[in-house]
């Protein structure tokens, strides 16, 4: 199982990377894309919208199922990866390179409560 050590994770299978400029990049984990199968559609939030932690902010759909994406922490959307709308398979090819959106945190303290790599790995293993 691929779980990079430098990222944070949610129990809804998003990954979070803290960028040097203070924003965070968000995507779905390798495990999530593996469960979903071939992705065919990505719906990202609009730039400028704000979300509270845990709010639905996007959708990924595979041939098999649709899955909501939740804001891992509260914040404002400052960028979205438009490349994914025409090439959603990039998430299957490299889930940790295919970021979906960038978020400017309103409460950076929320980052501390997210799962680290070993916590996420345990969660996935417990799922069987």
């Amino acid at each position, binding site marked *: 199982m691929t779980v990079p050590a430098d990222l944070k994770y949610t129990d809804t299978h998003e990954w979070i990377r803290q960028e040097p400029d203070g924003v965070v990049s968000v995507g779905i984990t390798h495990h999530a894309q593996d469960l979903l*199968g*071939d992705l*065919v*559609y990505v*719906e990202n939030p609009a730039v400028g919208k704000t979300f509270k932690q845990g709010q639905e902010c996007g*959708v990924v*759909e595979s*041939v*098999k199922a*649709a899955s909501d994406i939740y804001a891992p922490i509260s914040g404002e959307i400052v960028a979205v990866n438009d490349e994914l*709308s025409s090439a959603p*398979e990039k998430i*299957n090819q490299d889930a940790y390179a295919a970021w979906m959106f960038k978020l400017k945190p309103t409460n950076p303290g929320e980052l501390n409560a997210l799962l680290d790599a070993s916590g996420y790995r345990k969660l996935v293993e417990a799922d069987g």
Partner: protein
Amino acid sequence: MSTPLKRTPLYEEHVRLGARLTDFGGWEMPLHYGSQIDEHHRVRREAGMFDVSHMLAIDVEGPGAQEFLRRLLANDVEKLKQTGKALYSCMLAADGGVLDDLITYYLGPARFRLVVNAGTADKDLAWIARQHVELASEIGLRPRRDLAMIAVQGPQARSRFWQVRPDTRALTEALRAFEAAPCGDMLVARTGYTGEDGFEVMLSAQNAVALWRDLLGAGVAACGLGARDTLRLEAGMSLYGQDMDESVTPIESGLTWTVDMRGERDFIGRRAVQTRAPRFQLLGLVLREKGVLRSHQQLRSPHGSGEVTSGSFSPTLGQSIALARLPLEQRPGDSVEVDIRGRWLQAGVVRYPFVRMGKSLLPA
């Protein structure tokens, strides 16, 4: 429900190839071997194969076999005059509901083989046995769990099959669609569920692994049930349990063409099919917006409401397509709205199939 899942003779092959396995009608079957979309394209462009050994062959033999099947099935097996000919049919309940859809092969005088769906196999066997008792037909019923079935599909399917089983070529080269020929212990049929050319091969379970490996060696891609579903949907072929079941008639399921009403033949369900007014029709949908049509989504139009029975993303067309129950007044060219996750998205009504032999059939 903790009944252990059943496994086909090719189960170990699927595991060896790294398949993602899934429960399909009580069987542990490959969903895909990595990428369902790649497997789909392999079948459209080249050749792929599917383990369909979960389907059940039932041999119906004896002097009363033809008369029995003429009563049992909505299509008329009297059309099967030449050995090897195959016929697609529904098997109906007395109220006209669809119990299953199946293919009947004519194996010779008083010898037929039915191939039924995996999920309905036990129910079908019980139903057929009951009709057999009631009609007191002189037949023998033999479920063939000793057989495996491999579908080889795609523009290169036949040539790859001949490459690994050259002795079958002379026997199968002249087969037309819906014709089969026995080749040693195999029955090779020019049938399929993908909208492409190819063969479905029934053979004894102990020979299945060798054929599977030989085809793999000849460059035929192992394909899972995921690709099988998108291929059959593009080809406009119904899936039992989604597009039709016991609650609907063949008329309501786009299968009127399979019900043979000629003459006075008294098949089970005939009266109901003649008298029951259809409530809806099955038509195709093409989603005009981003998203994916899926079964059970609700839809609305000025003519009334409806429901998606099968929906997915079409890898060949690059957009989402579906089969749907629509009001009887609905026509191809109309627009309807589909409730996709709380939003009403626009879809166009079209005739199906959507794709045939690798080419889009959608109106330009």
